[in-house]
Every structure is written in C-alpha cells, then in structure tokens.
C-alpha cells in the first residue's frame, strides 16, 4: 500500500477563515437583514443586573455584553470603575456572575467583557468551559492584544466561545487586517483614543475607523466607546453595522434605574437605529 502524500505547495493562499460560530452567524444574519446591531453593556453583579439583561433584550438588543467586575479596570472610565467597585463590594465574583446568567433566557447571545487575569487565574480552559456551561457565547478581553491571544483562543475555541477583538483609531492597516481575521462574533471598533465613558460628541476618528474596518472585513463591525445618546448611536451606525452602548446604560443603573428605565433607554436607541 502506498501512501498518497499531498505535495507541499508553497504560495498557496491562506485558508478561508473558519466557519462563523453561532453568535457570528446570527449577528451576520441580523446585519444582512438590514437591521443595525444594538449591543448594550452592563456590569454583572450590580443591582438587578439579571433582570436588566432580560429588559434590554426585550427592548431590542441583538446581543448583550456583561462585565465581570475586576479590581483594576484600566480601560474603563469613572462610571464603569464605580460600577465594578460597587459590584465587587456587593460580593460579585466570576462564579456569581457566570451562575447568575444560567437562569436567564435572554433570547440573544450574551458575551462577557472582562480583564484577562480573571481567566488566567482560574485557568484558560476552566474559565472558557465554565463560560460555555453558563450560556455565554463570546468574550471581550481588552487587555489581550493579538500577540497574547494564543493560549486563551485555544481554550476559547475548544469551548465554543467566540473571542471578539478590538480595533483602535490608530491601529495600522496591517494589524487591522490581522485582528479582523482573528476576531470571532464581530469586530469591536473603539471610537476614540481613551477609556470607556460618555462623550458629548464623537470625532471623525469613529467614522474613519468604521470605514477602514468595513473595507477589510465582512464580519459584523460594531462601534463602541463614548456613545451616549440615540442621535450618536444613529450617526455611528450609519457607517458601521451597529453600536455598543455601555456607560450611558451603567450610569442609569448606578443612579437607581431598574429594568424599566433600562428598557426605556434601550427602546430609544432601538428606535433611532431603526429610523436611520
């Protein structure tokens, strides 16, 4: 019996990126239907967060990002810092947030947004496994750039967790292409140079980055950081596939707003996106 070995071919084009995961497939379908993606963020473990996840999904969110609070959130501005500190003081842990999601049937994909040490400390595989078991579809780790993704992504892919990569306004073209190729679920475009938090206006950086991203990937492109109002959401969505709104929602929760308030705010964003 002879072994038929495939000849080694050099210069062959790179293999196509893997089949989209379930979350990406779903968000692509939403995008392809002509609807703009609306992705709220809220801090896990803060107040009635589980009820708020249901409320924002009911008000038209297409996916929900849940922050797992970390002691040193370097990419977050004052509002989410306070939310994280308060959630931690109320006893939030990675386990309590993961298990808190188990009872929720949000009806839309849910992602975690957190910092790498929480996964690293538990062990990449165990963390990814527990996320999947709790019903999470994806994760965003803002302090893990492409170069450091290796061990995490291996664990995440093994557990079926889609890891969303972030792109920034000054990310050079070659990095932009590579991180879009690596990203799963969607690509997170960071609207501005800075930390999370509401801004009065978004500069040209957001629009420029959205256009650059759309030019190099057909994955859904969602833009976040600084979006505070329905008008800003519509403006950014006009040049991208949708928006991520975090601090503006978290501020309302910190001010005592519950599921009803979150529902109202999310509906106002949904209407603005649908009207644009």
């Amino acid at each position, binding site marked *: 019996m002879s072994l038929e070995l495939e000849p080694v071919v050099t210069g062959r084009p790179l293999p196509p990126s893997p089949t989209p995961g379930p979350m990406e497939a779903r968000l692509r379908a939403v995008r392809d239907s002509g609807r703009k993606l609306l992705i709220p963020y809220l801090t896990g473990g803060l107040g009635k967060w589980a009820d708020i996840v249901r409320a924002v999904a009911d008000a038209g969110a297409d996916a929900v990002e849940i922050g797992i609070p970390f002691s040193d*959130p370097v990419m977050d501005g004052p509002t989410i810092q306070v939310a994280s500190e308060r959630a931690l003081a109320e006893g939030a842990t990675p386990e309590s947030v993961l298990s808190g999601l188990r009872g929720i049937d949000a009806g839309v994909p849910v992602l975690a947004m957190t910092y790498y040490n929480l996964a690293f400390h538990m062990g990449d595989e165990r963390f990814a496994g527990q996320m999947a078991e709790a019903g999470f579809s994806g994760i965003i780790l803002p302090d893990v750039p492409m170069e450091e993704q290796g061990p995490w992504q291996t664990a995440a892919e093994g557990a079926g967790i889609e890891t969303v990569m972030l792109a920034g306004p000054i*990310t050079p073209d070659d990095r932009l292409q590579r991180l879009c190729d690596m990203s799963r679920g969607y690509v997170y475009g960071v609207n501005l140079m800075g930390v999370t938090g509401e801004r009065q206006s978004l500069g040209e950086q957001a629009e420029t980055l959205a256009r650059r991203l759309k030019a190099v990937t057909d994955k859904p492109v969602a833009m976040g950081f600084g979006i505070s109002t329905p008008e800003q959401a519509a403006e950014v969505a006009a040049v991208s596939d949708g928006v991520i709104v975090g601090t503006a929602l978290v501020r309302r929760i910190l001010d005592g707003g519950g599921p009803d308030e979150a529902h109202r705010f999310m509906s106002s964003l949904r209407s603005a996106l649908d009207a644009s």
Partner: protein
Amino acid sequence: MTSQTSPSFMGEPDPSGRFGRFGGRFVPETLMPACIELESAFRDAWADAAFRSELDGLLRDYAGRPSPVTECHRLSEELGLRLLLKREDLNHTGSHKINNVLGQALLTKRMGKKRLVAETGAGQHGVATATAAALMGFECTVYMGEVDMERQKLNVFRMRLLGAEVRPASSGSRTLKDAVNEAMRDWVATVETSHYCLGSVMGPHPYPWMVRELHRVLGDEAREQSRVLLGGADPDVVVACVGGGSNAAGIFSGFADTAAELVGVEPAGGAAVGGGVPGVVHGMASFLMQDEWGQVEEAHSISAGLDYPGVGPEHAHLSDIGRAQYHPVTDDEVIDAFQVLSRTEGIIPALEPAHALAWVIREAPSLAGRTVLVNLSGRGDKDVAQMMDILEGEQ
C-alpha cells in the same frame, strides 16, 4: 559607556518581551502601536553612540554620577560583617529614579513627544519625572494615590514646584497600583503626544527591559567600585529592596554574571514574589498578590514606594530560576533599620532601602564575616515627617 556583551542572566527578553514565563505585553490595542514604537525607538537609541553619550553627560553633569560606594565601618563592626552601600541617595532628586527618567526623557525628545505622564508611589519617581520635564521643557502630569499624597506631602509640593501637575488616584486602594491604572488611562487617551514615563521595571514590553537597562549604570559602577575596595573581588551578597524592583534590577544587572548572591527584600505586606501567584495586570505577566478569584489585592507597607502588589517580571524570572532570592521584612524591622543606619553611619535612608538594611541586620548572624553590598536607593528626607509621627507616637 559601552554596552555589555550578552550577559547570560540578565540579557534581553525574548521577542514577545518575556523573561522565562513572565513579562509580555498585555495592553489594549489602542496602546500597541505606542509600545511597538517605543521598543523600536529604544533599540535604535541604545545602539546610537550619540544618544548614549548625551545620556552619560546628563547623568554626570546633571544627576551627579557616579554615586560613590561607602564602606560602613561602625555598622559593619556592630553586625560582624563588611557592609558597603551604593549611594544612590546622593543623586540629584535623592534616589536612583533619576537614571531611568533622564533616559526616558531623552527618548521622549527623540520620539518627538512633548508631554510626560507618570505614576508615583513615594513620590521619588514623580519628582524625578517632574525634574526631567522641567529640564527638557516638557509638560508633566503625575498620578499619585490619594493615600500616598497624604503621607508624602513634601514630594507633592516638590512636584508642583517643578511645574508638574499632580493628579490624585482616588479609586481602589488609592495607592501605587491605582496611580498606575490612572497613568495608563491617561496614556490611552493621549498616546499620540505623550510618553508614559513608567517608573519601574514593570508594565508591558519594552518597559521592564528598558528601565533595567537605564539603571544598569548603577550596577556597573557598583561592581567596579567594589572591586577597587575589595582588591578585585566581588561582594558575597548584593541586597536591594523590591517593590516593582527597579533599583534591584539595576544593581543585580551589575552582578548577575558574578558569583555574588542576589537578594531582593520585599515588604511583608507586599511580597509579590514571596506570597504572590502568577497573574496578569498592568501590561505584564508576573507574580501578583491576588485573591482566590484573581482580583488584585492591596499591598500594605510603611513605605509608599513599595506598596505594590506586583513585581517586575524579570524578578519573577530570577526567582524562578533561582538566580536571586527574595525575602520579606516587617514594618517594625524597617523602622529599626532606619534608625540604626542614621545613628551608626550618619546616613538617613529612605524607608524603601531601609528594607534591604533590615534584612541584613536580621540575618547578620548568618552573614558573619561576609561582604554585603546594599543598594541605598534613596535618602530619607521625604520620610522624616512620617517617622517623626511614628517614633514620637511610641513615646
């Protein structure tokens, strides 16, 4: 000064910025271009004789290098060993921090940036950064934990006098780790015009390597000076305090390839190497004090400069491979050492190097007859008000 030829124990990190399993570059994508630019600028500058010569000139004519090595006759006799001090306390601005800052300031100029952002614990790095900014005509913003601003009021005033803006870090433990968080948040927003003048051998690559190289001068000097004093021999033990670990990295780099034992001394309440487990924060993988979930714990030390729950990744590696040992000392031992050196040698040390002395004093019986070099990384002027409260409160 010429660079050393590939030292075996403290050479370059690997291309990912790792020392063994520690280090790396865990930063947001928005900071990656700046880290890559900085690495390239530093490599280029460090290989450029004109840059090295300009830096050496500043270190000599502005900072007062070389700092001497002083033999402590009275304390040596009391302890039954031969004690040498590398006198970084005699540098301009009062500590070793100026070495790193002058290097990074020149690099900032070379990169065409005009603003320095820094974190500070005890205020020594903040003062050094404010000083370099004044010298070069840069804007300067220093972040300092609210708790530290209170215990180091004099340094806050110094920084302001030098024209720097001091901003309080008022979240979390309100100490050094939170000042690092705030400095990183500032840098994310201003990276195109600002350089983050990180004060220790920590953070994302290339900082741990770059800052160690900028402090290598003190280790190289100390080795040559010791050999003159010791008839060509090296000290048996080289001791330095470790918070982030910059002064220790500087002096260890001068002796890593000799037979000297290397000892890092950590505060008992902030012993990242001694009590930490591997973790990732502030851009690096290293030993880190953290709870069962990976939340970073607050360090507690009498010394604001060592109140840091992590440690530079190269120290984690040197501990891993057994090239350096790390030991804790308590606040009480430090208070004692602070007074002992003042009374026996007429040198008031900063609380940070008083940790290194405290270990030598405690371990004197097992060090009997040996030659011990301590890096006296800073002077105690900034600490006398705090020590007055502590010592008069005892009476």
